[in-house]
């Protein structure tokens, strides 16, 4: 219980800090959002109109008052209006989040499909050719920029072979394959190594020797004894990449014109749409922390040692 309260305060402090930093940046940044907003239609706007709009948006107030107002709104679930879309920020965020959530889900499925079999294969045949091949590809993947991989996949499977659409500004089943595959290949290079290390660690434990001595077959040992023990470390990793994926992987969403939250954030930054940027950063902070928290909880739940430890 004490740990929970400690964690919760820490999360709150982080949220406040991160939102304050973004607010400072937006306040200090060059470029006038009001001028951007009104002059977008190629019209010259008089100073009076600019002043009036500033007053309407509360941008004429001192910095701390602005931050206080925004914070008070955010606590009630109101993050203000997006300048560019003229819609509430929360609405824009939830629109973008649907795309990002779908993409993250499909990516995780791909990651597991790629990295579990390869990681296990490479661990079981350690220092034989499958291990070398898998490790070689893992190394290549680590050094390859994800956006370049995305562009190459787009070029080969989108343009040359025509299997997938080149750009999908709406959510479609076919459109999700390439972005998810790009992200999954990029992530799998890390997972394959981890899966391999974890399985190798387990294979060298005494209980495996014991099981072999009792004459259990290698596949029973692997599936019944080794894999369940390997789940725990992998969950942390999975949690971390879910957090990363839900942050909206801006670069990949831009490459494939996928309508996600990262794509939206990059556009918001270009339009100097500060309420939307601030809402985005706060949202990411919340998602990230909630997922870290859940990973922590799953630890206690999955590891009997920790579970018992808490009752003492």
């Amino acid at each position: 219980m004490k740990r929970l309260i400690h964690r919760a305060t820490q999360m709150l402090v982080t949220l406040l800090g991160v939102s304050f930093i973004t607010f400072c940046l937006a306040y200090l940044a060059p470029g006038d959002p009001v001028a951007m907003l009104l002059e977008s239609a190629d019209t010259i706007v008089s100073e009076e109109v600019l002043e009036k709009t500033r007053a309407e948006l509360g941008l004429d107030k001192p910095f701390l008052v602005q931050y206080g107002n925004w914070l008070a709104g955010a606590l009630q679930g109101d993050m203000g209006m997006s300048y560019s879309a003229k819609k509430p920020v929360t609405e824009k965020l939830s629109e973008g989040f649907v795309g990002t959530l779908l993409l993250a889900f499909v990516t995780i499925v791909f990651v597991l499909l790629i990295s579990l079999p390869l990681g296990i294969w490479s661990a079981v045949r350690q220092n034989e050719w499958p291990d070398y091949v898998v490790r070689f590809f893992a190394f290549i993947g680590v050094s390859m920029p994800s956006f370049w991989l995305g562009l190459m996949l787009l070029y080969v499977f989108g343009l040359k072979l025509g299997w997938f659409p080149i750009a999908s500004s709406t959510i479609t089943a076919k459109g999700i394959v390439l972005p998810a595959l790009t992200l999954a290949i990029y992530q799998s290079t890390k997972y394959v190594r981890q899966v391999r290390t974890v399985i190798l660690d387990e294979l060298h434990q005494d209980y495996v020797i014991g099981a072999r001595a009792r004459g259990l077959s290698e596949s029973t040992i692997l599936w019944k004894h080794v894999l369940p023990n390997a789940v725990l470390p992998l969950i942390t990793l999975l949690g971390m990449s879910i957090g990363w994926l839900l942050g909206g992987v801006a670069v990949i969403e831009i490459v494939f014109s996928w309508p996600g939250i990262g794509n939206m954030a990059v556009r918001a930054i270009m339009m100097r749409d500060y309420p939307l940027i601030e809402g985005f950063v706060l949202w990411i902070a919340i998602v990230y922390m909630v997922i870290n928290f859940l990973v922590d909880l799953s630890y206690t739940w999955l590891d009997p040692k920790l579970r018992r430890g808490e009752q003492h």
Partner: protein
Amino acid sequence: MTEFIKQHRLFAVYTALVILLVLVAIFAPQLAPQDPFDGNMRNVLQQPSDEHIFGTDKLGRDTFSRIICGTQTSLFMTICVVVLLAIVGGVVGVVSGYFGGKVEMILMRIADMMLAFPGVVLAIAIAGILGGSIVNTILALLAVGWAKYARLVRSLVIKLRHNDYIIAAQVNGTKTINILWRHILPNILPMIVITGAMDIGTMMMEIAGLSFLGFGAQPPTPEWGLMLNEGRQYIQTAPWLMIYPGAAIFVVVAIFNLWGDALRDVLDPRHDS
């Protein structure tokens, strides 16, 4: 020297490659066959040929020359980021680890805050809001990355602080600055160098990523991420504009990753790989 090379053959090979890259970066303007800024509207979007082995871009500039000069931009930015990270993180880590107290508490709370947040998102926000430029990219990556180094250095310093030879120096009345400089720094330097070297590849990719989004180097600077972004629009008509700059990032990042791993094996033999 020859003995060292014999013992660490791989490290020697990778170091030679790294030196080669640095030389290419330094002498890029001399090595590039053509001026990377000099456009020729009669030569727009030419296919790779004998004259332009990687083709030309939308302004008729030679892609090969721009990639060579991009080495300079990329390496310069990356080295700035990594060195500044080591210095800032090192100072914060030493101060909080050696002196402790309130300063440590406040600095480490801030570091925890930075670590509890996805760095790339914040880097995009900072670089984007400040406006795309080489300096702002470096600042953004610095703002996001220092906490990891500060944490590492702090834990190293705390381990050292209670060693007998440090206490002896304190009892003898050695000035604090001398203790830090002569006894603490030499002991933590290898770990900082290893961490920095292994981060070079990652930083290089993040810099290219920011430029790709338009929040890094600005045109007409020859920079690989920016070139990919410009080439992206011509994926159908001029695929060489996205193939070669990306391949350049890949090769250079791979070399630095290999070098970083090898350097760790040399400096920290206890680490089992």
